[in-house]
């Protein structure tokens, strides 16, 4: 940065950091009321109490505290006390603590504390009786399973941590808070098992979080993009999950979970590509059933990536491959279609993407319309109007349907965009360019890493691990934790 571009912090910020709490109640009140724009700021309360033993002053946001507790445990005891004893002995709240300067006062107020000032004292007391409103713990919406727990995270940090504590009742489960130097300062919680996690990975994550200086990072969805090494890459390097049981499994393998207030999900780092294809249900189901469902999903991934591109390549360049009867069938169905095959496929693929995008954004009362419109216009009418051939509709529907089988939403976009790349590649030089594109794609996947862990491990580079890649082993036979994470304790049994 050039010297004339130096950051200038606003004076108000600098002032409040240095301000100590004064002995004069009047001064404190005046300072805080000015800082918080009392009167304009409608839920900011500044309340004077004249008890029999002295004058008190309370500050709080009325919208984020529990009024019942305020009345019962703070206001009533302060007013009723007859003897002049210290505040901690009057207020019967376990969360009471003393604060020395205005910086802490401000932090407390935003966190849902009531600040108690007393005339003639150069310290104040904060009582945390916050009552932030949030959703209840509900069923997971995006990662559904038939067999397995039905809880999901919700948009409250304490609730989420409490769910974690319930998952892993151990003193080694550490929830560490790091503040992002953004505006406003936001805490990020790292959840990990102290006796498993690799320190190098943990330090790397912490270092990257501390490096962030951008303002306005209020949830992990945004944080994810600031933490990633390759923000423009097609491949996510952190797993985004809303299932506490899934997150708990990862933590007990030595991964780190990142949670924040305001997010009903957590991030798992570091991650390998396999995790995006695994559903927690694979482990809950019996070995054969879980692996069968993985096999189906693997087929779905291959179909969604390659079926349209292969169709383009083979019909355009390698028609000798197609059995003669099938070739005639394709040719006759295309007889009256004027468009080239690539254009035909792209038209339908784009239409399918449109339906999908519209399906997410459409208000739910209008939802059924889109199904009818999509099915009628794209399926029936387009074929009858000889814009596309029926076989293309089948292929595009198949590849679109298969992309919904993705176990994780993060990888869904990867598959969808990659599919278009492959279609373009196939249209250029048939199988030669298609295979070349696949080769480049795979080379990219094996070359990247997530927080120092190779994206394709444990397949390659190989390590001791549960060998949980395409298929999983019988749980009893899983001897090792993932070795690519280099956990403190490798032995699982």
């Amino acid at each position, binding site marked *: 940065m050039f010297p004339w571009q130096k950051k200038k912090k606003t004076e108000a910020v600098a002032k409040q950091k240095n301000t100590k709490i004064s002995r004069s109640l009047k001064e404190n009140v005046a300072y805080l009321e000015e800082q918080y724009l009392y009167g304009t700021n409608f839920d900011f309360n500044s309340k004077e109490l004249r008890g029999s033993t002295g004058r008190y002053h309370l500050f709080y946001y009325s919208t984020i505290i529990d009024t019942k507790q305020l009345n019962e445990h703070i206001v009533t005891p302060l007013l009723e006390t007859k003897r002049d004893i210290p505040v901690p002995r009057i207020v019967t709240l376990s969360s009471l603590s003393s604060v020395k300067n205005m910086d802490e006062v401000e932090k407390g107020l935003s966190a849902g504390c009531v600040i108690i000032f007393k005339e003639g004292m150069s310290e104040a007391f904060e009582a945390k009786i916050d009552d932030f409103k949030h959703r209840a713990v509900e069923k997971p919406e995006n990662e559904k399973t038939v067999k397995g727990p039905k809880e999901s995270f919700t948009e409250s940090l304490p609730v989420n941590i409490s769910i974690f504590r319930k998952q892993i009742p151990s003193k080694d489960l550490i929830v560490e808070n790091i503040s992002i130097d953004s505006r406003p300062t936001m805490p990020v919680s790292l959840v990990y098992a102290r006796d498993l996690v690799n320190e190098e990975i943990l330090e790397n994550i912490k270092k990257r979080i501390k490096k962030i200086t951008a303002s306005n990072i209020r949830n992990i969805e945004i944080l994810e993009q600031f933490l990633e090494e390759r923000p423009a890459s097609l491949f996510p390097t952190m797993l985004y999950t809303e299932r506490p049981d899934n997150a708990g499994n990862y933590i007990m393998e030595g991964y780190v979970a990142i949670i924040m207030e305001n997010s009903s999900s957590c991030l798992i780092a570091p991650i390998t590509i396999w995790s995006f294809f695994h559903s927690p249900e694979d482990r809950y189901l019996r070995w054969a059933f879980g692996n069968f469902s993985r096999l189906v999903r693997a087929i779905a991934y291959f179909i969604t990536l390659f079926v349209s591109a292969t169709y383009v390549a083979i019909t355009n360049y390698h028609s000798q491959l197609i059995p003669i009867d099938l070739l005639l069938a394709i040719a006759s169905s295309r007889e009256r279609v004027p468009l080239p095959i690539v254009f035909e496929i792209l038209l339908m693929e784009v239409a399918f993407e449109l339906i999908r995008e519209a399906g997410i954004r459409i208000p739910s009362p209008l939802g059924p319309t889109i199904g009818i419109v999509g099915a009628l216009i794209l399926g029936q009418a387009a074929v009858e109007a000889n814009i596309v051939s029926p076989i293309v509709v089948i292929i595009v529907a198949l590849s679109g349907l298969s992309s919904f089988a993705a176990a994780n939403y993060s990888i869904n976009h990867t598959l969808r965009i990659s599919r278009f790349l492959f279609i373009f590649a196939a249209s250029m030089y048939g199988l030669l360019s298609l295979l*070349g594109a696949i080769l480049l794609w795979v080379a990219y996947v*094996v070359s990247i890493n997530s927080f120092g862990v190779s994206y394709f491990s444990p397949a390659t580079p190989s390590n001791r691990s549960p060998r949980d890649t395409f298929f999983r082993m019988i749980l009893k036979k899983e001897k090792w934790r993932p070795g690519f994470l280099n956990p403190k304790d490798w032995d699982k049994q």
Partner: protein
Amino acid sequence: MELNKKPLRIRELTAMIFMIIGLKGGDTTPALFADHAQNAIWIVPIISFLFLLGPFLILMHLLKKYKNYNLIELIFHLIGKKAGTLLALLLFTCGFIAMFTDMRNVMEEINYLYFPNSPTLVIYVIFLTICILVANKGLETIGSLAWALLPVIIVTIIAVIFVDLKEAVLVRIFPLFGGGVGTVLFEGISKSAAFLEIFLITIAYQSFHQTKYFHSGIYLGGSLSFMLIVSFYAVYAMLFDYNSINNIAFLYQEATEIVALGHFFTNISTLFMVGWMFSNFLRFIIFLYLICWIFGAIFEIKRFEGLLLPIGFIAMILSLIPPSFVVNEMFFRERSLQIMTPIFFLFPFLLWVASYWKDRKK
């Protein structure tokens, strides 16, 4: 941040060796052997193997003895900088020639069989661009990539052998020594440089998690490749028979062309092209990378990835000089292999003597 230093292990090396040596079962090398050896082509690689085994074991022994050197460093250490540069350049030139003659053959195959209407140059440029782009990512990526794509290639190989064995006739192996014992022996020995990559890959001696992994990997990969080549050649011999096998230029494609899978899939050769194409991409990615690495090691160029483009380009231009596939294969490749064989046969002995001399001087 890199959590695991030097992550490559046995499986990656095995996969890489399998790609650059084993896949000679599917290129034009069998046609080269079949020209004189007839249906004894499967014996030719055995002879080559036995012929090269001695020098190869000596080289491995020397590498093990001087733990911290790769091929070029070992040459420099043993016979000095000047003579070492000369020898290393000689090896580089041999490898380079072998690479571009092979590459031209493969390009002609792709061109002739799958894209008969397009010019060789366009296919060449596409192929080379992809090779250079991938090779640019470094050895770890290449090794991992080889392992990641290995399943596709193995499935292809098993499928080819399976469908071909249905058409194969065992007695076509006879006459056992095809063109005659002398011819077969001469073919095997004089063209054993066709497998020279096994020497060149020792440039990567220091790049694996432990050097003992390199030993395991190269022996495992080498023997698997050997088995694959011999069994493929035997299948070709059983498919095409004496006196007609020497008239076929692309044995692999021909072998997949003549078989059908039931009554519905009558023409499945393009299906087998997938694994074949992947393996050829990988083979030249690895080969190009090794060649650049050797060149970089000779002239102490640290970031030798920058050489991929010029070396690849020069290889392309040079390989397009022979007017046709036949000239390239039957004249250029055959002659060059005959010249290269003694070099690769002798240089490990030279190093061995130098090492012996060094020990005695102490």
